[in-house]
């Protein structure tokens, strides 16, 4: 029989959501519908992004674990680097060159994660740190979305999922593959704004709203309803995570409710400012992935139930505020980092009342 004595409990839950490595895999799985939708509408660029970033992420994670003298294999098995890579890969515009991806993931894994002591210790969401660094350092690259359906390619119509599209994506990612640089620089000079919300901000009308008015077919690639479908797919994945109880309801619900309320309050019919409709704010940009996948990163989010609600409200207000009044186009990263910054404070003031005590704990 045994000689070792273990502390109680003697058994552990066998459910798959009660294992860190599996939780991360479930998060990746829940992202799949959204990724599939993006690929369907916009081609290989995003997929290539994710793949390259994930490879870099795992490599960097292994190097950092080795440097920190931690067992590399066991720690890689928690799959957290994959999730960081995935989120960053989705956030960075498709068609970005590899060095951009590398810079972002390097900052995310090395500085934002491992300088703090690795998984579980980082107070800021690594992927969003990486994204914000890129946004501040390379604003042009980060707002340039190369899509095969761009007006740039209007003369040579091809399907986003075709071989040619894959070639273009590869060339954009690894400029050395293109042979001569002239062709690529031509692409880089032209750019297209990505989300309908941004289009709305600049031009006053959005493709999603236009598509709604025109009753365009939903899944046709040229129908420009892509963003709507993508957001719905991420919402689906997020609901799946909620169903599996991997994420709590507090953060996504409070973010979405806050954005809804804000957009209802400030909506002005026919205004030239970007006070878009609630629908546009929820489904015309990266709201869904932000609310369900990025803000809910448990390590950097608030951890008390009450704190999570306030955290969500803060992020919701920041998202709307920056979108509408700020000078940056995509606000999720800034809002989430702001939320992360406030999270320890919220946790401190939102501690629940302990059984048998008449008041909340306080210092």
């Amino acid at each position, binding site marked *: 029989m045994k000689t070792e004595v273990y502390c109680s409990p003697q058994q552990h839950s066998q459910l798959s959501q009660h294992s860190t490595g599996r939780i991360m895999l479930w998060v990746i799985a829940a992202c799949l519908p959204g990724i599939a939708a993006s690929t369907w509408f916009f081609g290989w660029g995003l997929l290539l992004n994710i793949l390259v970033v994930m490879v870099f992420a795992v490599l960097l994670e292994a190097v950092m674990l080795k440097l920190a003298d931690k067992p590399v294999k066991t720690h890689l098995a928690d799959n957290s680097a994959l999730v960081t890579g995935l989120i960053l890969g989705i956030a960075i515009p498709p068609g970005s060159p590899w060095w951009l991806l590398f810079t972002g993931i390097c900052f995310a894994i090395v500085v934002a994660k491992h300088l*703090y002591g690795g998984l579980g210790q980082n*107070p*800021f969401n690594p992927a969003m740190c990486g994204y914000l660094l890129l946004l501040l350092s390379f604003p042009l690259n980060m707002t340039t979305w190369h899509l095969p359906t761009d007006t740039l390619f209007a003369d040579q119509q091809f399907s986003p999922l075709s071989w040619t599209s894959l070639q273009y994506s590869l060339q954009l990612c690894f400029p050395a593959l293109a042979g001569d640089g002239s062709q690529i620089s031509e692409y880089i000079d032209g750019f297209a704004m990505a989300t309908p919300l941004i289009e709305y901000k600049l031009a006053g009308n959005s493709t999603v709203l236009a598509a709604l008015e025109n009753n365009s077919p939903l899944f046709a690639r040229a129908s420009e309803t892509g963003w709507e479908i993508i957001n719905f797919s991420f919402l689906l994945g997020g609901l799946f995570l909620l169903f599996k109880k991997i994420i709590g309801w507090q953060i996504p619900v409070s973010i979405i409710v806050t954005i809804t309320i804000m957009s209802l309050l400030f909506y002005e019919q026919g205004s030239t400012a970007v006070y878009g409709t609630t629908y546009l704010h929820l489904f015309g940009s990266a709201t869904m992935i932000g609310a369900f996948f990025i803000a809910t990163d448990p390590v950097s989010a608030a951890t008390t139930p009450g704190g999570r609600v306030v955290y969500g409200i803060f992020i919701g207000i920041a998202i709307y505020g*920056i979108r509408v009044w*700020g000078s940056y186009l995509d606000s999720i*990263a800034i809002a989430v980092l702001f939320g992360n910054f406030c999270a320890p*404070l919220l946790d401190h003031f939102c501690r629940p009342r302990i059984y048998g005590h008449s008041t909340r704990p306080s210092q």
Partner: protein
Amino acid sequence: MTEFLSIVIAAAVVNNLVLVQFLGVTAFYSASSRLQNSLEIALLTAAVLVTASLLNLLLTNYVLSPLDLMFLQLICFVAVSGSITVLILHWLREKFPVSLRRLHLHLLLVGGNSAVIGISIINTRNGLGLIENIANSIGAALGFALVLIAFAALRQRLDTADVPQPFRGPAIHLISAGIIAMCFLGFAGLV
């Protein structure tokens, strides 16, 4: 009212004293070692900041500027902020004899705080009116307090983290402050 609010928000978030203008960093760093401490310093600084900037405005507009004594501005501002701090601390000590034990550290952190003097100089240099001045200093005080308290809570969390030995202490704190400053840069253009 909207204008007043927008000045407050701009001063608190967009032009945050610590993270965007890098004023009062000493107080920000040394007062954030403990949450309780940071609450005290934040409140004190806010009070001193608002009063001092108001007094400094009056001093500049009605004494220094008419008398061509603008070259004395800096010294006067230091004197004003120092004396206000001493007065407030004196009053506080009589009110709460126990809770403010480390008063002299507070005196140095608040009285010698570059945020207090800096905001006065900025206000007078930009030629702000009375209302704008008040709004700006209230916003700056709010922003300073928010950042200081939240950073203190963050540091408490970092105390339990397994930070690699070379990055322990000030190194990781400054890295964190840098990331937060990046985040506040993102608020640019909000107002």
